[in-house]
């Protein structure tokens, strides 16, 4: 035998992936700093006024007045600092955090720029953010429940729509709570139907989802034009009003956002918390995740894969039905054709954006909600940017974030694959 000569340990520096990421983020942050200075900062004057309280609030906060010109320079300096820090001390743990922080600064700088010399109600915008985010969050949560047991649910859109429709119809007949219960049950029924199609009848999951969407859209539109137009009283449900939580609801800014909302907002927040506990801290949650990751392994250990899938997809449908009822019982009390308008698909995006985690899906939904309400405010502020570009900004941002940050996020391993016993 011959000994192999020792090769000396590498002394040259090899860039690790983390360092690479830091470098990219650092450059990006510095570019943003320059952008803020040259696009927002140039010739900016006046104050941006953000109203924090409404006339009716018990504790009036003074308006938040930001001198626009100086602020942009401060924001740019902060961005530059974050960027430089990433470049110089690359590879530390805070890269993602820096990026998130940097984007937040950018958004605020943009707001200040757009509001310079004007004012708008920040509290109103934040409250609207939460409201608009809820159906998306609930849709995303429904998706999480289904995909954690490896059933891809493209049908969230249809389930939302079914919930909205049922809420209006039954709500008109039996009142709000009756409508709500019915919406949840009908959502669950569609979940069960999806489960039956994909688990028992082994239909392709995407096909089944697309079909349910088509079916619900057709059925609800058909009934609404065939029946509701004639019998108006069938489409006139009461609306759940905002319920202010004593004390908490009076906190400025946060109060109206979180503690003066209707049951749908409270319900969604509670459901997200429950789902998180359930999935990651209970026995059934562990089994459900096992079914999503490696159904055969779960099967060999006596976990009933089919039953688990049926249960969770049905639960997901119920959550979506609840979210759908928001459109009618939580908002306008009337059903209208296709009134969910693609929110289910955005919910799906929120689920992926949120890495198949309930809290992640909620956060992602809030980003969409924020963009949505921001855009309405900006239309009032008469910014020189065409409104279309403002509308697409959140979608572009989502793509960038998905590409940059969670490109490698993993879906449950068995996601989308049917499981065949024997």
């Amino acid at each position, binding site marked *: 035998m011959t000994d192999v000569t020792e090769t000396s340990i590498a002394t040259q520096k090899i860039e690790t992936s983390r360092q690479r990421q830091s470098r990219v983020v650092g450059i990006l942050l510095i570019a943003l700093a320059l952008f803020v200075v040259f696009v927002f900062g140039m010739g900016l004057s006046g104050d941006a006024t953000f109203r924090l309280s409404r006339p009716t609030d018990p504790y009036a906060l003074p308006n938040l007045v930001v001198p626009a010109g100086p602020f942009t320079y401060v924001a740019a300096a902060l961005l530059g600092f974050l960027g430089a820090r990433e470049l110089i001390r690359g590879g530390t743990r805070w890269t993602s955090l820096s990026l998130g922080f940097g984007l937040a600064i950018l958004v605020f700088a943009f707001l200040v720029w757009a509001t310079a010399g004007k004012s708008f109600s920040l509290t109103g915008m934040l409250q609207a953010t939460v409201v608009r985010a809820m159906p998306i969050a609930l849709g995303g949560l429904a998706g999480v429940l289904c995909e954690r047991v490896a059933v891809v649910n493209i049908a969230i859109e249809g389930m939302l729509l079914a919930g909205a429709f049922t809420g209006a119809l039954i709500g008109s007949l039996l009142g709000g709570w009756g409508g709500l219960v019915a919406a949840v049950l009908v959502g669950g029924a569609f979940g069960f139907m999806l489960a039956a*199609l994909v688990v*028992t*009848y*082994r*239909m*392709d999951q*995407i*096909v*089944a989802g*697309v*079909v*349910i969407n*088509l*079916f619900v*859209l*057709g*059925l609800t*539109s*058909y*009934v609404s*034009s*065939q*029946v509701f137009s004639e019998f108006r009283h069938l489409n006139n449900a009461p609306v759940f009003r905002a319920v202010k939580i004593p004390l908490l609801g009076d906190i400025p800014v946060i109060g109206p956002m979180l503690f003066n909302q209707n049951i749908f907002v409270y319900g969604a927040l509670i459901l997200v918390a429950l789902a998180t506990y359930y999935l990651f801290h209970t026995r059934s949650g562990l089994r459900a995740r096992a079914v999503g990751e490696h159904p055969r392994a779960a099967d060999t250990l006596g976990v009933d894969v089919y039953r688990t899938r049926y249960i969770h997809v049905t639960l997901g449908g119920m959550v979506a039905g609840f979210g759908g009822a928001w459109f009618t019982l939580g908002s306008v009390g009337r059903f209208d*054709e296709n009134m969910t308008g*693609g929110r289910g*698909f*955005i919910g*799906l*995006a929120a689920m*992926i*954006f949120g890495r198949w985690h309930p809290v992640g899906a909620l956060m992602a939904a809030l980003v969409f909600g924020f963009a949505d309400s921001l855009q309405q405010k900006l239309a009032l502020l008469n910014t020189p940017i*065409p409104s*279309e*570009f403002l*509308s*697409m900004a959140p*979608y*572009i941002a*989502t*793509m960038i974030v*998905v*590409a*940059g940050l969670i*490109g*490698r996020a993993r879906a449950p391993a068995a996601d989308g694959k049917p499981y*065949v016993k*024997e």
Partner: protein
Amino acid sequence: MTTSIGKRELDDAGRALLKRSTRGREDFEDLVVVPVFAVIVALILGALIMLATGVDLPTIGKSFVALGKGSVGSINALSETLTAAIPLVLAGLGLGLGFRAGLFNIGAEGQLLLGGTAAVVFSFTFDGLPFLLLMPLSLLAGAVVGALYASIAGVLKATTGAHEVISTIMLNLISYQILNYLLRQPYIQKEGRSDPISKSVPDAGELPRLLDWIDPNLRVHAGLFLMLAAVAVVWWILFRSKIGFAFRASGENPDAARYAGIKSGLIIVAAMGTAGALAGLAGAAQVLGVLDRASPGFSAGIGFNAIALALLGRSHPVGILIAGLLFGGLEAGGRQMQVDAGVSIDLIAIIQSLIIVFIAAPLLVRAIFPWGFRKSDKAAGGSQ
């Protein structure tokens, strides 16, 4: 090691391996019985839904007559059916090709919108070119822009692994805004209008109507040939060409494809691009053949219906063609149904979805109607 492969004489054992299993009753059932059955059952269920919503029996009868009349009952009906099928099939072919390559592209809607807009803009920009140049080039513009737009999702997936479902959903939402913005630009907006609507396609840019010598209202246009050619080309690409083999290989097993030296990134971008080109063509055919201009949301959900279509056609070009004709017929017939019987056209969507369910879940059909069908061996087999 050196083994000469070239032209080698096969011995008997080798020739025996070249046998293909013949098509039996199983294929007949899958390809003929189940679909026919699906359509019939879906229509019956549609009738039940009408009954449940208080439509009386004579009206139901009338609506089915109208459905038949409106889809195949006259030259006009056939023309409408084909007109509706053209963009559906074109976009569906692109989606089907993507599915084969393992890409779940939800973005046909956006690719179609931007492709169609590009075709319109190209056509009025180069107004004055002769028909033989302007029309094909306008189509090409649509295809190119559709391909480029789809490639964004492809490139993102190939370079960063961004999930194409999210990026195509986002690209759809972005495309609506781009379109709204473009339609308000003075260069594109129709003169004297304040609403978002584009200038018209010049006559030399239009896909000529094929039957206007019979009746000027017959809308079927030369896009029909485009559609048929696309079916043939996509079939050839998928099942005969080298690139198609690479598409299918990375769709079925990306890992094995990578080991075999197929560059997954390139394939993703190429497949997305091809799919986008077809969706762009669908949009171009729609504006050059039917709409004559671009307006907000002129895609009318074709890109989404095409998903259902591609799935129903099992991502096979011929299947997609047949499914497209079926959907086109239902759409045209549905319109007649609303006029003649006063039944909402939304019923069509219900019938469409039921047909897909029964075709896509043969096990369900067999479970409901156990007689008449072969005992399903497949059901017991499956994976492993």
